[in-house]
Every structure is written in structure tokens, then in C-alpha cells.
């Protein structure tokens, strides 16, 4: 059995067979979120991936979970995942230590429209842990900065303590060629930035709605609101991309657990153009 991933074109000979990966470093990002660095432990090739793709991570004796890749596609020798501890498997992932060995399948799924959007203004909107799946796209865009028009990044978080990748955010804010906006739902005594949801910050961005691409990742309700706001501003919904999350199990479009309407999130997504799913998002029980 072979599988060709639609984004990277990589052919995976045995898509259900795990490869062993060793944890090389862990970093605590927030009180419940860790970033895990991994490298292939089987002497095989690096895990080349496209921004937006995900892997299936198996913690032996615990279970398997789909995780978006959060690393830099230009550095495939290190597989990076940022994981929030919300269940049995993700709790086990966040408890991994250097030297631990886990199983990886993938990469799977579609990619952010980074390669197909050169020359366009890029609008990236992330909420909460949703910054992790867009981070590879940000790395790629900034590494090829001259290939794009304006670059705007809007990031919303619960509190200042819940912000991910704070060093990188500081770096992106310091760049003259990036408009980085950060907001939190609730501030603390030290916070001197914006408070509130991400949508008012989008109104502050300057971009050509007819020559731009939007990358949105976060809670589905947030993505719907942001997509509608961008559409109201005049951006074609076919240029707005969201990353959907459902109950991915097999990762290759066989089991149907992640089905949303006629699409499988693992195979047709997770990255999809908003116009393809707008009528299905917000539909109760779907």
C-alpha cells in the first residue's frame, strides 16, 4: 500500500507503519503546553513536510493522536510539535523527556497556500494553540520575504501567560517588514498590549483584498468570525484558508472518523479554502 500526500507529493510506502523518533529537547511554552523536538531514530530520511501538514504521534502503551507540525520546513531534520495537554495521549506527550522514543506516521494532509501565494499580501490570523500549525508557514514566508507583498500576523491568546513562542513574537514584532498584532482576552498587571478578540485588529491591517491570501487557524468559531470579517472587507472566500480539526484516527482517509460532509479532514484537509466549507462550518452536529 502506498500513499501520496497531496501537499508535499511525498510517497509514503506504508502509511500505517510507525517510524521511531527520539525526543531531543522539550520546552514548556505555557502552564499546559509543551514544544517537543524529535529526530528520526531509524536512520531513515528526514521527515520532509509542507506548512500545515500533520503527523500521527503514537505514545507506546497510551495511544495515538494527530498533531500539526510546528517546525521549519527548511529544517526537516528536526520534527517539532507544540502540544497542549488536554487528554490522556497529549498529557503523555507533554510528559515526554529527552531520549524518549515515540512512533510517528506521516506527514499527512494539505498545506497552507504558501507556495501558490507568492506576490500576494499575506494575512495570518491565529488564536491560542492555533499559532503552532501556522508557524511553519510564517517561517517559510519570512525566509522568502521578498517573494510576498505585505505580511501581517494577528495572534490572539487567552492571557499574556498563554502566549506561545514569545521570543519569536518579539522578533516578528521588531521586524519592519511584518505587521505583528497581539491581543489577549484578559490582561494582567504587566500587559501593555491589546485586549479583546482578534477581529478589531484585522481592521487595522493594510492589505489589498483582491491580491491577498489569508491563513487562519484557531478555534473554529474564531475562524468563522475572522473569515466572515475578511469576506465583508471584500476578500474573495476562495483566498481565505482555514485549518479544520476533527477526530482524525487513521490519517489517510479510510476510517471516516474525521468526515465533515463529503470531505475527510485527514485527506482533503486539514487546510481548506473557506469557500469549500463555509456552508458546513457552524452547522450543528457536523
Amino acid at each position: 500500500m502506498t500513499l501520496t500526500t497531496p501537499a508535499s507529493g511525498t510517497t509514503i510506502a506504508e502509511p500505517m507503519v510507525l517510524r521511531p523518533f527520539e525526543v531531543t529537547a522539550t520546552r514548556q511554552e505555557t502552564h499546559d503546553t509543551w514544544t517537543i523536538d524529535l529526530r528520526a531514530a531509524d536512520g531513515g530520511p528526514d521527515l520532509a513536510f509542507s506548512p500545515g501538514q500533520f503527523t500521527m504521534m503514537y505514545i507506546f502503551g497510551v495511544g495515538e493522536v494527530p498533531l500539526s507540525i510546528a517546525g521549519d520546513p527548511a529544517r526537516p531534520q528536526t520534527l517539532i510539535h507544540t502540544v497542549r495537554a488536554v487528554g490522556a495521549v497529549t498529557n503523555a506527550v507533554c510528559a515526554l523527556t529527552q531520549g524518549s522514543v515515540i512512533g510517528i506516521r506521516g506527514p499527512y494532509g494539505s498545506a497552507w497556500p504558501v507556495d501558490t501565494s507568492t506576490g500576494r499580501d499575506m494575512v495570518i490570523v491565529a488564536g491560542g494553540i492555533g499559532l503552532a500549525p501556522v508557524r511553519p508557514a510564517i517561517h517559510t514566508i519570512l525566509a522568502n520575504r521578498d517573494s510576498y507583498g505585505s505580511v501581517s500576523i494577528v495572534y490572539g491568546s487567552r492571557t499574556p501567560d498563554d502566549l506561545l513562542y514569545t521570543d519569536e513574537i518579539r522578533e516578528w514584532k521588531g521586524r519592519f517588514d511584518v505587521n505583528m498584532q497581539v491581543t489577549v482576552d484578559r490582561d494582567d498587571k504587566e500587559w501593555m498590549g491589546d485586549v479583546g478578540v482578534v477581529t478589531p485588529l484585522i481592521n487595522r491591517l493594510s492589505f489589498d483584498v483582491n491580491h491577498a491570501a489569508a491563513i487562519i487557524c484557531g478555534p473554529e468559531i474564531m475562524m468563522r468570525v475572522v473569515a466572515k470579517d475578511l469576506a465583508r472587507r471584500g476578500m474573495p472566500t476562495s483566498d481565505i484558508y482555514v485549518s479544520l480539526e476533527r477526530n482524525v484516527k487513521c490519517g489517510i482517509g479510510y476510517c471516516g472518523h474525521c468526515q465533515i460532509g463529503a470531505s475527510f479532514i485527514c485527506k482533503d484537509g486539514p487546510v481548506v479554502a473557506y469557500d469549500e466549507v463555509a456552508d458546513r462550518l457552524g452547522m450543528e452536529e457536523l
Partner: protein
Amino acid sequence: MNLDQWRTTSSVFEDMADEHFEFLSSIAVAKEADAGEALFRVNTPADRFYLVLSGTVALRISGPGAPPIVIQTVGEGALLGLSWHIPPYRWQWTAETITESRLAEFDANVVLSECEADEGLDNAMLRIIAHESGRRLQNVRMQLLDLYGRQA
């Protein structure tokens, strides 16, 4: 004050007739505020409103024995101040600049007087207030959902 650049970039003036935009421009007064400056304080007469041209302004409220709570910040292109149009015409929040800011200030009494004489302007201002109130309600509902704290 020339507000032409905000005619299309600020949602405040969306759908506003040219003569009403020109009226507001004619009475707008430029204001510069340092970081940490209170533009208005809770429970004082609401006799003006602002368009934020640059910088960030926090809407906050205080309780006894606790630091002020910021519920929202507003920035470039946003309307600041709604209470001037709604009884009892007193500010419901304190507005304080977080950063050095530039604003266009509008005298609410002048606008209200003109609204009495010009029904079209009155309707336009009501639309702005209703639109902004609705948007803020939606935003606060989103904050209350605590979306980023949920699992999905």
C-alpha cells in the same frame, strides 16, 4: 481637520453620505495624548467622542482594592466613545491611552445639535452607534466564550 484618509479605511464612515462626513471633518479637532493619559473617566459627563488615528486606548473599570480591569482596547480607525448619544450621557468606562496616541475629537453637543436639524445625520450617527454597539457585543460574547481555553 482633514480626515479624508479615514473616509475609506475606517469602518466608522462606511455608508456615510459625503455631506455628513464633511460636517464631521469640519468640527474635528486634532488631539495628541501621551501614554497613560485619561481621555475620559467613568461616570463623568459624556460630551465628546473620538476617532483613533494612531496608538492604542484601553477601556477599563476599577473596583475597590483591585487593579483596574481592561475589557477592551481600541486602535487605529476605531470609534472611541458611545455614551454621548445614550442617556444618561455619562461615560460607562474610563478610557486611557496605552501608547502615545493621535485622535480626532468631536464635540458631542455640536453633533447632537446638528442631528436635531438634520435627520439624515441623526440617522447616520444612530447607524454608527448601533453598528459599533453590535460589534462590541459580538466581541465581548466571543471573549466570554473563552475559546482559547476550550479543547476545541
